[in-house]
Structures are given as C-alpha cells and as structure tokens.
C-alpha cells in the first residue's frame, strides 16, 4: 500500500479484545487515494462499505507515574512523580469495508480530524463508495465532521436549523425534564433540581 500511495501516513491500531479486529489508521490527506487503492487493488477489491460511523474522543489528561532519581536533602533517592499530559481530542470516522467479489472482510479504515473545534474536515469517501453518502451525512449531523467532496452534505436526522452535535461527549441536551416515578443516577440529579422537595426520597 505504501508503494501504491507514496507518502501516506498508515498505522495499524491493534484491538486487544477477543474479536481482534485491528484497524488501519490513514492520514486524512491521503484518505481518498488509499480508499481507491483498497477498492481497486485486485488482491483486495474491497468494493462494499457496509458501515460508516463517527467516534468522538474528547480532550483527556493522562497521568503517568514515573520514577525519578533526585537529590533530596543531600541523599539521592528514587521518587515517584506524576506527570500530567494533556492529550488533545479529535473526531474519528470509521469505515467497515468488505469485498463482495472475493468474499473477505471486514477491513476497518479510520481517519482522524486534527481537533474537535475548527479543523474537523476529512475527505469524503462517498465518491469511492456510494453507500457512505447517507452515513457521512449522519456523521456530519451528529458529530460535526465536515466531509470535503461530499455531494450533498446536509443534516439528515436533526432539522436544518439545529446547531449542536448531539453525539459529542460534551453535548448538553435541552432541559425538558419531566417527573419520573423512579429516578436514578443522572435522572435523579436532575429530579433534585426540578423537584427539590423530593431530594431525600
């Protein structure tokens, strides 16, 4: 593949779970070329994109415990230190590809945006697999991934005037809470706000 698409950033992301469905991370600047190669290569012939979805990876803080040698009060000691790293979040588009002709698959293709704010553009794979058209619209609607080269990128489930992206982790749903007889967890917290007299119940 590296020979067919020179300069493409490729990375295999292993999946440690029993299904062992490893996936292929592709740099977004070569997304279309890699997709065309996967579809047209005679040994692969991945002619069917069965599923396309989005994933939201929010900004995270990674804590690492590192053992450092330091001189404390004149004595060299080994001390555990916690290092905090801010890992910027991104949005991810995941494609599940099969070959109808050669009867193999799935190959899982991933592309990542640069961040979750402004740079949320990815190349559309609808010109390669027509079946991705509505599903890319859905990913645009719910996650806010903008697909360059999509023929008709509009909201598909929510109305056109809608501004939010409901499947993002930081989405806050409108507060139209109504009494429930057995509130629990998050619903219980909201019930306390709306019905303070029942907070002890």
């Amino acid at each position: 593949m590296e020979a067919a698409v020179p300069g493409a950033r490729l990375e295999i992301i292993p999946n440690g779970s029993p299904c062992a469905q490893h996936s292929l991370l592709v740099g977004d600047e070569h997304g279309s070329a890699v997709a065309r190669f996967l579809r047209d290569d005679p040994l692969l012939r991945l002619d069917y994109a069965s599923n396309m979805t989005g994933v939201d990876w929010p900004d995270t803080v990674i804590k690492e415990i590192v053992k450092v040698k330091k001189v404390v009060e004149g004595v060299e000691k080994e001390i555990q230190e916690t290092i905090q790293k801010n890992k910027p979040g991104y949005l991810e588009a995941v494609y599940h590809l099969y070959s109808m002709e050669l009867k193999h698959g799935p190959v899982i293709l991933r592309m990542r945006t640069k961040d979750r704010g402004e740079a949320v553009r990815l190349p559309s794979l609808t010109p390669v697999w027509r079946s991705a058209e509505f599903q890319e619209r859905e990913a645009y609607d719910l996650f806010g991934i903008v697909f360059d080269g999509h023929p008709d990128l509009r909201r598909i489930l929510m109305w056109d005037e809608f501004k939010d992206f409901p499947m993002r982790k930081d989405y806050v749903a409108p507060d139209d809470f109504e009494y429930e007889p057995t509130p629990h967890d998050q619903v219980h917290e909201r019930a306390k706000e709306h019905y303070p007299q029942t907070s002890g119940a």
Partner: protein
Amino acid sequence: MDERLRNELSRQGIFTTTLEDLYNWGRKNSLWPLGFGLACCAIEMIATSMARWDLARFGAEVFRPSPRQADLMIVAGTVTKKMAPQVVRLYNQMPEPKYVIAMGACAISGGPFKQGYNVLKGIDRYIPVDVHIPGCPPRPEALLHAFMTLQQKIDEQALTGPNRPRHLVAGAPSEFPVPQFGEHDLEPSQNPQVWHPPALVRPE
C-alpha cells in the same frame, strides 16, 4: 325525561329521545380516524382495523387520508422533535369536533426515548389528548378499549353547561400553535395552555 315513562312509551311503540342523546350518539359512532402512523404502534393500529379485531364495529373503520375528513387523530408511535410540528399542523387542519388518542409509551411520555435529545416527551405537550394508552406497543384490545373510553366520554358530555365539548364553547381554541425548529430545541418546548409539568404531591 323520566326513565320509566320512556320505557312505558317505548312499549307502546313511541320512541322518545333528546337532542343531546341523538347528537352524542351520532358523534360517538362515526369517529373517523386520520390514517397515519409514526412507528411500530401503527402496526397494531392497522391490525385493529382489520378483520380479527374489526374496528368497524365501533363505526371507526374509515381511515381518512385527509385531515379535513377526519375526526380522530391516533398518535400511533414515537413523535420525534422533527415530526412534532407536522403532527400539530395536521391536528390544526382537522375540523371540529376532533379528538386525540395518544397510543403507546412514546406518544404519551417519550417512552424508552424519554431521556434522549430528539424525542418529544409526550404529544400532550402541544395538543390536548383525550385518551392515553400505555403499552409498548399496546395490543389491539387496548386500542379498542381506548375507543370505547372515548365513546363513553363523548356520550357523557352535556351540550350545555360548563363541561360542554370544546367546539361548542365560543372562543375556545380549535388550533394550537405549531412549534418552530430552534437552534437547540423546539420553540416553545411545550404549550403552557395545554400542558403543565406534573406537580408532585407526596403524602407526609
């Protein structure tokens, strides 16, 4: 009229009635539903209208494809926020007298999607509902029971006095405001004329 006198007269071959009885008898036995379904409850509604359960026994077999010819709206299924304005608009287009049955958990409260962001938490937020049916989906028997409940409700209505039907009250609303698509939610998110958040009264 005295019940015994009426029985006595009918034994003599003279049938008496009141305008109220006649009027309500006509209303309750020709409820023409609007033929539309929103989700799986519609399948049960269709089954109710077919031969096995036979909604025609109640004078309600003519599902009308136009709201102008319908008396009864059966909200059969999940009302998404994107669909809610159209449901209210259809209700507004129906002529009086008109009735609403909210069928199934979704139509009465949002059901399993109650905690979601895109499902209306009950159609009674925008239009007045006469009969609520719980169930997911309710069986055809439940829909028939709702029909009989509605017929009973119509039958018991007096045509004069404070409890007369809405279409006989001058100035009572026949149309209800259609919600607009907002940037985050429907605007308004409920019609305060029709719907009030449930007040919670807990015995001490």
